[in-house]
């Protein structure tokens, strides 16, 4: 990667001042979380695929540390250090370096060392209001920096749960679909296999053991599994407990007994996953899908967000929605968004963010905390403003 020029440095500094002034005027406190972070928290949150892109190292004391791959987790940790009660409402903004290994070598749109400017807000009860304000502030900062040509792409990981409810799935089916949703490749396969008879699945567990299990009598079920292990001279080792194993066997047993998933439910889920297009049209499409399942709540949330966005002065013609979007992002739990420009294309969004209510728990809060945030990739923003030439 070529060294940063003095011209880039000055332009980025000036741009950062513009972005930060938009954030601070909107009531966000400027903070500077630590660049060097404990690797554990990050690795627990991001999973192994982003870990391959995180610079992890060991310090002379043997502690495993990393260069932060983003500023969201460091801001959560900063919030936890400041407030005994993690649910204390707070709004932060930042501009600082983040680091990600680039497998194909760094280029201008994918530098391994880049600056993120962003906002995070914690503890807001008004969910859609907090989400839309976050999106609107990020976009107004981008416009203030000089970018006119942008489009906004939305997704909603919470909406999928509502679709599953509407499909009339049992809690167990729902849980399995929720788990599978974050893995797009496996998802279509599971959808197919769930629709088939589960009895055809190969398994090493004898039917007699499965038949002796009963969810209503957990103690007896665990005893049956323990008895089977004993009889087969298999020792129980490791951190996965007898209860964990029994739980999963109960799921397997129920899969076998229950038979295939209802075809109309499969069709409903399949047609939701395919929804993509202009936000208003997508809303109408989701409405049609949900109407035949007689559920309105999820759609109300969707429409409310669009109305709030329009109120905030966002031109809805620039907004698209894709049901698939956000599935593979590590820690989001609800709304997800990204801001794109034609110049840089879909592979290089200039900003992104969303709702991540579960992150604070993983970072050490012990409870879920309502959280929404968004960050701007400042090098890309500068490149987009300059017309793609960097």
């Amino acid at each position, binding site marked *: 990667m070529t060294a940063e020029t003095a011209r880039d440095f000055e332009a980025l500094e000036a741009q950062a001042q513009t972005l930060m002034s938009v954030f601070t005027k909107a009531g966000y406190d400027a903070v500077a979380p630590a660049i060097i972070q404990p690797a554990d928290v990050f690795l627990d949150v991001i*999973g*192994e695929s982003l870990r391959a892109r995180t610079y992890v190292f060991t310090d002379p004391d043997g502690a495993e540390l990393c260069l932060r791959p983003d500023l969201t987790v460091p801001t959560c940790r900063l919030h936890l250090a400041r407030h005994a009660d993690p649910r204390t409402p707070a709004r932060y903004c930042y501009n600082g370096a983040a680091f990600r290994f680039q497998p194909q070598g760094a280029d201008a749109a994918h530098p391994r060392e880049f600056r993120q400017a962003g906002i995070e807000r914690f503890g807001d009860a008004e969910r859609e209001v907090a989400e839309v304000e976050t999106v609107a502030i990020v976009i107004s900062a981008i416009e203030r920096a000089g970018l006119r040509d942008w489009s906004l792409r939305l997704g909603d990981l919470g909406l999928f749960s509502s679709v599953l409810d509407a499909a009339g799935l049992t809690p167990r089916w729902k849980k399995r679909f929720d*788990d599978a949703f974050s*893995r797009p490749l496996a998802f279509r396969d599971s959808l197919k296999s769930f629709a088939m008879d589960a009895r055809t699945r190969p398994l090493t567990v004898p039917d007699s053991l499965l038949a002796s299990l009963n969810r209503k009598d957990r103690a007896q079920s665990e005893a049956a599994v323990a008895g*089977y292990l004993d009889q087969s001279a*298999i*020792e129980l080792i490791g951190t*996965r407990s007898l209860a964990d194993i029994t739980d*999963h066997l109960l799921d397997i047993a129920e899969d076998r007994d229950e038979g295939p998933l209802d075809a109309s439910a499969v069709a409903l889920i399949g047609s939701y996953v395919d929804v993509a297009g202009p936000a208003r049209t997508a809303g109408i499409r989701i409405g049609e899908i949900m109407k035949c399942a007689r559920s309105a709540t999820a759609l109300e949330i969707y429409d409310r967000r669009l109305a709030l966005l329009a109120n905030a002065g966002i031109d809805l013609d620039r907004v698209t929605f894709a049901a698939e979007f956000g599935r593979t992002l590590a820690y989001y739990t609800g709304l997800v968004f990204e801001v794109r420009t034609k110049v840089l294309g879909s592979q290089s969004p200039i900003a992104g963010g969303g709702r991540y209510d579960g992150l604070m728990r993983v970072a050490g809060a012990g409870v879920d905390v309502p959280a929404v945030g968004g960050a701007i990739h400042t090098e890309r923003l500068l490149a987009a403003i300059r017309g793609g030439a960097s």
Partner: protein
Amino acid sequence: MSRLTLAIPSKGRLMEQTTEMFARAGLTVRKVGHARGYRGEIDELADVDVAYMSSAEIVDALKSGSVHLGITGEDLVRENISDADVRIGFLRKLGFGFADVVVAVPACWIDVTTVSDLEEIAIPFRRAHGRWLRVATKYRNLTRRFFAAKGFGDYRIIESAGATEGAPAAGTAELIVDITTTGETLRANGLRVLRDGVILKSEANLFSSRGATWTVGLEKLSSTISERLALSVPANGGR
């Protein structure tokens, strides 16, 4: 004529088997100078320099091109050279040093027999224990590539320097990726290989380095060595 450098293992069973294999092919490998030295020669091939190296050094030397040929395990080459098929020539499987790189789980996980079962238990496990399934291994790259190809991502790798097979019982990892020959060590530690959990069936290979400086003469010499060794690979491949 310029000289060809051949790297062979400097100790242990692999060194013995390599020397025996050359002897069966009618090639006498001997150390130059005292017995604990690290240079050698082949009586019958005057233009070959033999370099005794540790297995890890052989992989590095093949990668950088500081040797022309090297004998080591395929597992180490695939783990440590991400674009091995581009940079390394796989000249010949040698019929010894067998080791399978496998995914093994506690045998008591009677509900888990395939990688897709792992995927199924990963999120409930995280819900119950507050962390990802941990995979102890020294094959971090092979593991990542294998699981990524299967679409499984809900795990964390724990770097393991030795005694990997003890990690699940010790509670420092839930499952392992490690090498096994007979499966005996795995069984003794209460572990079982997943049905689709064989990542690589490895054995010792004669490798060439595409990054080394080659001449027509050296390529001919390399073919001679490879063909002579072919004579001493057992008919059934040694398995």
